[in-house]
C-alpha cells in the first residue's frame, strides 16, 4: 500500500471516505514521518499529536456511524505560525509574541478546513513577523530546503514550503504579502495559491501589512490546492476586507483544460534581471501551452518600489509600540527595516498609494487582452543558507531585498496567482507564476492543472 504519510490530500480523503484507510492510521504515519524527518528540515515549531489523534478518531467514528464525510476527510495539514491555534500563543515567527496569551480559538481557515474533515497537526516555522523572503529565523532556526539542506527554503512561509517539499503533510497554509507563498513554493518545489486580495478570510491570523496580506494553501498537487481553496471560501465579517461575493468553487472546472484561454508571457521587467534558468522555466511552460505571445506589464519596477514603501510604512506602524519597548527582542534584520519604515515621510507613502490606483487600472486594461500571464516566481534557484548577496545579470545585489522582485508587482494589486514548480534540468526546482485577473483563480488553477496533467509541472517530495 502507498505510504499514507506522503499521499496527496485528495487520495487520503477518498481512501478515508471509502474505508480503505482510517484517519488515525494516516495521522499516525504523518506524525511518525515528522518525528523522523523534521529534525533535518526544521519546518515545524509545534506538533500537536494529542489534538490530531483525537480529531482523527472523531472522523473515523463519524464514518462508522454512517455519516457523510467532508471533501478533506482525514487530511493532515499544518499552518504557518501566524495563524491562530487554540491553546498556543500566535508567535508569528517572533520572540516577542510568545508572551501573548494563548489563542482562545483557531483561525477562521483552520476552522473551515476542519469543518471539511481535515486534521490540524501543527504550526510551521516562518520569518519573523513575515518580513522575510529567506525562511531564516534567528529565534527558531532556519527551515532548510528539503531538496538541498544547505539551501534556503524561501520565505516567509518557509516552514510551509519545507513541510510540503519534504512530504511531511499534504497541505499547508501560508501567508503572502509580497511573495511569501510563491517564493517558498518555487524554492521547495511545490504548488501554491495566492488568491485574489480579499478572497479568503484572514480572521484569526497575525497581520503584517493589512492592505497586502493574503492567506492561501500550498500542496503537492493542483487538485489539493483547489479542494482546500473551495473549502476555505466564503464571506467573514471578522475580516474587514473579506469579499462578500458568494463562493466560486474551482473544482467543477478544474479539468476543463486551457480551451481558448488567451495566455501570454510577461516581457520587459519580467524577462531580465534573473538567471537564465528562471526564464527558461517560463518558456518551457509557454511552449507546452502553445503560447508565443509576450505582453508588457506597465511600470512594474515602480509597482515593486511602491509595494516596498507601503510594506515598510504599514509594517512599522503595526509594530511601533513593540519597537518602542522591545526593539532589542526583534530579529535585527527585521528591526532595522521596521525602524526605517517608521521614519518614511508620509507623502512618500501617499504617493505610492496613489500610484497603486493607476497601476491597478492599467493592469485591468491589460486583462482585457489576455486571460493568463506567465512570469517567473523568483530570479534564481534557492540561494545557499546564510547567503547575503547574489549576482543577477552581472549585478551584485542583496539577497533578502531582491528575491521578491517578480512577485511584488503582482501582489501589489492583489491579483490571484498559482505558483507552479518547474524543473528545467536535474538541479533544484524553479517556480512560475500563473497570474489571472481579479477573482479568476479558477482560470489560473485550470492552467496549472493542465500543465500538471501533461507532466510539465509536478511536485514530488524530497527523498529524506
Amino acid at each position, binding site marked *: 500500500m502507498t505510504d499514507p504519510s506522503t499521499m496527496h490530500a485528495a487520495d487520503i480523503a477518498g481512501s478515508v471516505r471509502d474505508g480503505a484507510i482510517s484517519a488515525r492510521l494516516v495521522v499516525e504515519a504523518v506524525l511518525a514521518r515528522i518525528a523522523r524527518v523534521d529534525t533535518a528540515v526544521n519546518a515545524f515549531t509545534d506538533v500537536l499529536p494529542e489534538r490530531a489523534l483525537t480529531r482523527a478518531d472523531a472522523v473515523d467514528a463519524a464514518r462508522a456511524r454512517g455519516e457523510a464525510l467532508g471533501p478533506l476527510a482525514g487530511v493532515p495539514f499544518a499552518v504557518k505560525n501566524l495563524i491562530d491555534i487554540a491553546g498556543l500563543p500566535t508567535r508569528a515567527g517572533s520572540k516577542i509574541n510568545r508572551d501573548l496569551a494563548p489563542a482562545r480559538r483557531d483561525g477562521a481557515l483552520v476552522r473551515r478546513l476542519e469543518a471539511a474533515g481535515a486534521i490540524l497537526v501543527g504550526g510551521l516555522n516562518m520569518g519573523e513577523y513575515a518580513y522575510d523572503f529567506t525562511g531564516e529565523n534567528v529565534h527558531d532556526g532556519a527551515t532548510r530546503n528539503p531538496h538541498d539542506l544547505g539551501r534556503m527554503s524561501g520565505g516567509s512561509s518557509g516552514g510551509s514550503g519545507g513541510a510540503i517539499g519534504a512530504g511531511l503533510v499534504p497541505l499547508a497554509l501560508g501567508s503572502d504579502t509580497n511573495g511569501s507563498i510563491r517564493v517558498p513554493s518555487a524554492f521547495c518545489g511545490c504548488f501554491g495559491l495566492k488568491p485574489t486580495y480579499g478572497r479568503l478570510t484572514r480572521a484569526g491570523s497575525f497581520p503584517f501589512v493589512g492592505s497586502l496580506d493574503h492567506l492561501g494553501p500550498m500542496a503537492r498537487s493542483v487538485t489539493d490546492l483547489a479542494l482546500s481553496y473551495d473549502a476555505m471560501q466564503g464571506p467573514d465579517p471578522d475580516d474587514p476586507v473579506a469579499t462578500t461575493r458568494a463562493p466560486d468553487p474551482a473544482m467543477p472546472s478544474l479539468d476543463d483544460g486551457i480551451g481558448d484561454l488567451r495566455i501570454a508571457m510577461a516581457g520587459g521587467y519580467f524577462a531580465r534581471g534573473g538567471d537564465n534558468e528562471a526564464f527558461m522555466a517560463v518558456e518551457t511552460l509557454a511552449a507546452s501551452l502553445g503560447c508565443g505571445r509576450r505582453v508588457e506589464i506597465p511600470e512594474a519596477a515602480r509597482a515593486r518600489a511602491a509595494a516596498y514603501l507601503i510594506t*515598510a510604512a504599514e509594517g512599522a506602524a503595526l509594530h511601533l509600540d513593540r519597537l518602542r519597548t522591545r526593539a532589542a527582542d526583534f530579529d535585527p534584520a527585521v528591526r532595522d527595516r521596521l*525602524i526605517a519604515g517608521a521614519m518614511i515621510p508620509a507623502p512618500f507613502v501617499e504617493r505610492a498609494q*496613489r500610484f497603486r490606483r493607476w497601476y491597478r487600472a492599467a493592469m485591468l486594461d491589460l486583462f482585457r487582452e489576455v486571460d493568463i500571464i506567465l512570469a517567473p516566481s523568483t530570479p534564481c534557484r534557492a540561494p545557499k543558507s546564510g547567503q547575503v548577496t547574489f549576482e543577477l545579470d552581472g549585478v551584485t545585489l542583496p539577497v533578502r531585498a*531582491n528575491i521578491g522582485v517578480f512577485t511584488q508587482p503582482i501582489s501589489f494589486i492583489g491579483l490571484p496567482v498559482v505558483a507552479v514548480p518547474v524543473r528545467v534540468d536535474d538541479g533544484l526546482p524553479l517556480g512560475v507564476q500563473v497570474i489571472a485577473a481579479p477573482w479568476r483563480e479558477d482560470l489560473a488553477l485550470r492552467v496549472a492543472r493542465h500543465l500538471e496533467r501533461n507532466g510539465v509541472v509536478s511536485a514530488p517530495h524530497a527523498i529524506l
Partner: protein
Amino acid sequence: MAEMPKTEPASGGLDAYIDAASALLGIPLDPAWVAAVGANLTVLQGAAGLVAGFPLPDEAEPAPVFAA
C-alpha cells in the same frame, strides 16, 4: 532593474534625521543600529524617488484598501 535606484543621502546626511525621527517617534535607538537603519532608509528614499518620477494627475485617489 532589480535594485532600487541609488540615491544620495539627504542633504546633511541621514544621521541627524534618524536622531530627530527616533526622538519624535519615541523609539530608543542603539547607536549600533544607526548605520543599518540609514542604509534601509536610503533604499526607501530610492524607492520613493522612483515612484515620484511617474506623473499622476491630482485627481488620482490613493488606494490604501481596495476591492481587487
